[in-house]
């Protein structure tokens, strides 16, 4: 199998005695966008965490790039830092970039708000802006567009696509929405079964 930006050769992943993921071979080519889908509880987030290097308690091997950014399934912001600082402190972006990105995700002028003062959808957009500011080689997105109204989803998709294309960055997007997957991805991978494996791979 051709080595890509990231390549995972997973034999198995357990939580305690529970097998969660079975044998999975997963690689992403430079610039490629992969959508990851599968039922709730299948193991999508677990797989993403393994790719991100956050979970190393598995059987198998991983080779990953240095610059990864992630949009977690929950916003995972620093509650004690304002929106702009959440972007700058985490990614090292400068104030102008932060300002621009806040504008692009529809949070213009809210840079001084603490996460607790934002609606959940606004927090998600902030998390997206943060990930984009990191300018990663690989972007991992765990259902980034839920809680957004359809018009906003469209805007965010366009924005994400543009950033990915500009940097030729690879991406893995977890989503339940067929439309999102088809719109953004070069390849759709579906997890299923217990322990979960790749049950289908298609090109939209």
């Amino acid at each position, binding site marked *: 199998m051709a080595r890509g930006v990231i390549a995972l050769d997973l034999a198995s992943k357990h939580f305690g005695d529970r097998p969660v993921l079975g044998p999975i071979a997963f690689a992403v080519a430079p610039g490629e966008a992969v959508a990851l889908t599968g039922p709730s509880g299948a193991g999508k987030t677990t797989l993403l965490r393994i790719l991100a290097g956050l979970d190393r308690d598995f059987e198998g091997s991983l080779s990953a790039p240095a610059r990864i*950014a992630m949009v*977690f399934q929950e916003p995972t912001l620093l509650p004690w*830092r304002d929106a702009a600082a959440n972007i700058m402190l*985490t990614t090292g972006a400068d104030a102008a970039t932060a300002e621009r990105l806040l504008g692009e995700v529809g949070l213009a002028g809210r840079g001084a708000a603490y996460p607790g003062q934002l609606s959940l959808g606004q927090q998600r957009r902030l998390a997206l802006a943060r990930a984009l500011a990191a300018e990663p080689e690989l972007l991992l997105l765990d259902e980034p567009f839920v809680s957004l109204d359809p018009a906003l989803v469209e805007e965010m998709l366009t924005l994400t696509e543009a950033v990915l294309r500009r940097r030729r960055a690879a991406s893995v997007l977890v989503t339940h929405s067929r439309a999102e997957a088809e719109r953004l991805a070069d390849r759709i991978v579906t997890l299923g079964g217990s322990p979960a494996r790749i049950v289908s791979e298609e090109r939209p």
Partner: protein
Amino acid sequence: MARPPVRSGGRRGGGPWVALASIALLIAVWSVAALVQRDPRILPGPWIVGPLTWHELVAGPLLTDIGATLRRVALSFLIAMGLGAGLGIAMGRSSRLDRWLDPWLIFFLNLPALVLIVLAYLWIGLNETAAVLAVAANKIPTVVVTMREGARALDPKLADMARVFRMTPLARLRHVEAPQLAPYVAAAGRSGIALIWKIVLVVEFLGRSNGVGFRIHMYFQLFDVARVLAYALSFVAVMLLIEAAVFRPWERRATRWRAG
């Protein structure tokens, strides 16, 4: 039906008036107690202790003594908070280290101050270094105990986030961990400075020739309660100042985000 929010959590300004009124109330309670007690040798009222304190301040050694004590308190505090926080956080994060060091922690936590102080004086000598180190050694375990709990309660999700984004260790400490540890630091700091000052009293009693603790014990031997109170309360006053000038403003800054 417009009511104020039920959870008020965030401390609003309120000004120094409440604090002053509260202190006035405290003095009033003391006055009443003194009037009821009726024996000024056992519980002298504010009208006795007040002028006496003033006298000790302008004509007596109070200022020098407070200075000496404050120096010891400050030095020991810095050492104890620094080492204690470092060790406590390390123990909170590594269960292995924790299992090894926990018995030592309990040991030093429960070793009587007297024993540590006397041993320090005998080993290091009857000097300032021994005094400060003995106090710090007494306080370190309690800082460790508090900060360890703080480190254990750190949010793993934020830690993961910091790891993915490759935040530098320093940025992590400042922006991810420190804010979560802040309540523990506040608890350890406030009760820490009080505990340290209490141990400094013992240290001064056992082997120094100045300081508030030296005076308090000396006047206690003479059963001069008014002077004991004059020295004790002067230091309490200093602490009230530190609370108002350092702790409260720091806290207001550190918890602004919670006000929502």
